[in-house]
């Protein structure tokens, strides 16, 4: 089992009634911040990732959100670069895992390929390359991409990036969304093939692509994994069975918000307000119309979500949810090391999860409390998780070679309708 420390970089000093007056993305007034709060929110984010690297996690992970109060990381590769260098100087062999650059959003895919290549070089070959499609508001409002083009751009950009890393000779690219007379990036990744991971929220088409192409698949349990986990993971492994693939748990990643203290009671007391802060002022304050813009989800997906919105878990109640409700839905696992370990072991065993991304700093949590959470988890919980799946003696094809993985070349993809250039056939 691989376990990473995952964190976002929320602005940590929003007022208690923030969510009654504001959305957490796009329109959030920047006047709600102050410079020292912005500085410490980002500085502490990086400090905490470094704590994780020193505490024995297998990797550090983070993601991309622009124009957002709940994650001050419009470009995660800037974080990746800082952490790559710092861990390299300290000799810390951890994966650098941006989850990562949103390709539905990106209008500069060659730059994304170049940035990832630089991070891989700076880290000495420890990059794990995450590529989410991207959230609707981020791709279409923050970056102006028509919602109906987001998936097509994602698919084309991914193909282009994989080629920039793979092809030895310069090539021309005449795509639907990008044209380049010559692509020949310097540097290229140190790894022959940095492991590629796609984050999805449950769309079967995304899952199928990751399985067919040999990518890893990450699922984030923000909507409440006790409500959504079974649906999502059963769907994933069902598709895997359909394609005749072995159920290798290492191809599946799961992100969970976790709060560890000495006892269950203390966990609620210490972390409760920060859990509420995270969900009420973060995901809970992104209105549905900013996540699901018309055209961003294909018509079959729209119909499926309207008929059965359960993939959204408790999202619609999040803006006012209490710690108790959030824990009940599984948006957070909080408690003593025993409580937390038991729940995580059961999840991972039940759903065949081979990579756990533990979100241990969140919301308004001060650095000292994040440090406690990270260290308690690393000393009391992590050792119990690490040995899971060892008896299966499976190869981890979605992890850098330098860190014990055996990445495989990605498989050729089909050209979907959204990516095909509109030319006479």
């Amino acid at each position, binding site marked *: 089992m691989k376990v990473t420390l995952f964190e976002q970089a929320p602005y940590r000093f929003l007022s208690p009634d923030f969510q009654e007056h504001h959305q957490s993305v796009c329109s959030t007034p920047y006047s709600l911040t102050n410079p020292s709060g912005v500085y410490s929110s980002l500085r502490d984010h990086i400090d905490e990732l470094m704590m994780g690297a020193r505490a024995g996690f297998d990797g550090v992970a983070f993601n991309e959100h622009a124009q957002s109060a709940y994650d001050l990381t419009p470009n995660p590769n800037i974080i990746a670069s800082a952490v790559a260098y710092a861990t390299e100087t300290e000799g810390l062999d951890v994966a650098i895992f941006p989850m990562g650059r949103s390709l539905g959003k990106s209008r500069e895919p060659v730059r994304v390929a170049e940035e990832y290549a630089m991070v891989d070089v700076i880290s000495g070959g420890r990059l794990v390359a995450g590529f989410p499609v991207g959230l609707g508001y981020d791709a279409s*409002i923050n970056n102006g991409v*028509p919602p*109906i083009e987001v998936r097509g751009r994602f698919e084309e950009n991914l193909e282009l990036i994989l080629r920039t890393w793979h092809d030895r000779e310069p090539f021309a690219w005449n795509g639907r969304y990008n044209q380049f007379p010559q692509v020949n990036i310097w540097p290229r990744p140190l790894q022959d093939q940095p492991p590629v991971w796609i984050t999805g929220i449950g769309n079967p088409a995304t899952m199928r692509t990751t399985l067919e192409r040999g990518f890893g698949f990450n699922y984030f349990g923000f909507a409440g994994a006790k409500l959504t986990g079974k649906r999502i993971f059963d769907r994933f492994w069902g598709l895997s069975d359909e394609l005749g693939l072995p159920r290798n748990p290492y191809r599946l990643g799961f992100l969970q918000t976790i709060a560890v203290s000495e006892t269950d009671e203390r966990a609620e007391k210490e972390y409760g307000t920060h859990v509420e802060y995270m969900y009420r002022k973060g995901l809970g304050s992104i209105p549905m*119309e900013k996540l699901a813009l018309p*055209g961003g989800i294909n018509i079959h997906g729209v119909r499926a979500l309207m008929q059965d919105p359960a993939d959204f878990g408790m999202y619609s109640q999040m803006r006012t949810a209490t710690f108790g409700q959030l824990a009940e839905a599984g948006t957070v696992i909080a408690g003593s090391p025993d409580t937390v370990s038991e729940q995580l072991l059961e999840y991972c065993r039940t759903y065949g999860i081979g990579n756990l991304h533990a979100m241990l700093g969140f919301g308004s949590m001060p650095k000292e409390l994040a440090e406690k959470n990270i260290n308690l988890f690393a000393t009391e919980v992590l050792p119990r998780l690490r040995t899971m799946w060892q008896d299966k003696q499976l190869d981890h094809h979605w992890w850098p070679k330098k860190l014990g993985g055996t990445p495989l070349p990605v498989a050729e993809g089909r050209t979907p*309708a959204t990516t095909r250039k509109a030319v006479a056939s």
Partner: protein
Amino acid sequence: MTTDSTQSSVREETIETWGGRLKLRVKIAGQGDPLLYLHSATGLVWDPFLSRLAEQYTVYAPEFPGTTPGDPDAVHVIDHLSDMVLVYEEMTRRLSLDRPVVVGHDFGGMIAAELAAHFPELPSALVLLAPLGLWREDAPVVSLAAASATELPGLLFHDHTGEVAQAALAFPEDPEAALEAAVGMVWSLGSTAKYIWPIPDRGLRSRLHRVAAPTLVVWGREDRVAAVSYADDFARLVKDSAIALLDDCGHLPQIEQFKQTTEKVEDFLR
């Protein structure tokens, strides 16, 4: 969602365009000279306004690619607005429409204006009902695709609590039909947004001087999607144009002020 009870007389024809790669479904009704009607971003609904027009004209109302039930992927065939204008011009020839009156509403108004600007001889007359296509810094156009479901009624109507608005906004009682209507509307907004996102300005302002047809610009004074000030821009940029402004009227003049709108349009076309 208002549909007209006389719509049983509406027939459908599917027209092949773009070298056979794009099929357009066209609803047709009425008798008389041809009239091409281009629907709004929310999709084609055969409403009383179209039935009224069909009393004097043969109305041809194509469904924008992607918005036809059962053919959602048609939206991926055409990448650029200029090619879409060519598709519409091809369609008028396939249908043998000889100098039709062209009427367009909202997004369809923008397509109608583009068609008239690209092919000045094509329309015999042009009626633009609250068309999109221009942008003013002092009155940003509100995107229907970005609006929440709860905001939409207030954006579309001057008085969304009124009887007319309530009837127009009502979804079918049958849950299956209601689901399909909602899904269809979302996909229509998504399909049309391809050509107007994030800003409904693809350079029409610089082309409007080419419009040669006599043009009527109809606008609700209380339009909260595209402010009434845009009427002046269209009228100023189109040489042979007149403006009809309607009181107590939002973004759907032919629904919210059916009587006023039909009177103005019929007077203009007479």
